[in-house]
């Protein structure tokens, strides 16, 4: 099997971050690897170029945005092909490696579960904000920078997502 080192060296440095982020969202390693792979295909096809360390945040933001969107596609595809499963991988040792300090694991995993449950009925922008802020643990300012929108917009999207969650819970419980 060819090695990740076969990637162009300047991009290889970004691969671990994308792989771990995809795992945070999708939990299943195989799907996560597929999305990471596809994100890099797109990076090499049409992503920004890296010429110096000043470009790293820009390229990382592009990858965050791209792999979040691709992961949402995967979640939606799962929902079409499999019945709703609101269970999730518990925060075992392997899963906990995907989150650094300062992020409450139970909250992040619960947010991931909600994104998976609602991905078929909630607008993509709301899901993106929920993933970046609630699963990845970014601040609303950082999520706005990644998505290219204002902090206020992120807050509005999260509010809307929360409204959908409330409706879904009400329906799910009844």
């Amino acid at each position: 099997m060819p090695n990740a080192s076969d990637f162009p060296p300047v991009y290889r440095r970004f691969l671990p971050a994308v792989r771990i982020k995809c795992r945070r969202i999708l939990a299943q390693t195989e799907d996560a690897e597929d999305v990471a792979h596809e994100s890099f295909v797109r990076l090499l096809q049409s992503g920004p170029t890296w010429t110096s360390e000043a470009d790293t945040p820009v390229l990382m933001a592009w990858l965050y945005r791209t792999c979040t969107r691709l992961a949402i596609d995967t979640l939606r595809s799962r929902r079409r092909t499999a019945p709703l499963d609101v269970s999730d991988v518990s925060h075992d040792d392997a899963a906990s490696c995907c989150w650094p300090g300062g992020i409450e694991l139970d909250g992040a995993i619960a947010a991931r579960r909600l994104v998976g449950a609602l991905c078929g009925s909630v607008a993509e922008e709301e899901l993106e904000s929920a993933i970046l802020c609630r699963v990845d643990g970014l601040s609303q300012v950082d999520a706005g920078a990644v998505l290219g929108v204002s902090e206020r917009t992120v807050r509005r999207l999260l509010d809307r997502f929360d409204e959908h969650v409330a409706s879904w819970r009400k329906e799910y419980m009844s």
Partner: protein
Amino acid sequence: MTDTELHPSTFVLDVFFADGARADAQIAAHARGCERCARYLEELGRLDSVPLARAPQAVAESARLRKSVWRWRATAGGALLAAAAVLFGIALPRSAQTPYVGIKGSPAVQVWVHRGQTALWDGHSPIQTGDAIALNVVCADFSQVTVASVETKTAHLTRLFEGACPAQDQPLPFTLVADAEPGAEHVAVVLRRAALDDRALELAVRNAQRSSDVWAFAFTFAKSGN
């Protein structure tokens, strides 16, 4: 959920790692004293040494293949076909023009297939390797057109053509030539007023968007013998 004053975010740690985990002394110092942040960075390091499940060479290869799903020509042959398409557009009996999509004043696309002779595509007949396909678009109020191939499994689009809408009844200035790859070919034609980034284009095609800003058509060409 996050205590950003005490811990760097995932994004900041990812950037820190991508820059060689040395560029920011403050983050390095934090990681030395924070078990979970250190563990996260260790996991990034571990993933750096673990092969990706799919062949990285396939990245370049799949990119290359996607671009070659349709070979497109803007050659003299293409121009000849385009001219023929226009000619047929005039010469074909009205009954043969039923696949024309749309009504007067609405956006529309005609597909012409050249295999020995040029004929209006009926919307379902399989194409064959080597068939050349030309597109006539009626842009109505739209000014720009994008033609893209669609990979259905990943919903990935590869832009084949982008440009201004041609004058009425003029075909787009290229032809698509079906290759020998197995499987149906999916092509999207998107009329638009302004540029669309990859995601906006993807969503327009997926949702078959038809609004005052974007008008998307999708065509699936089955291949005979598949």
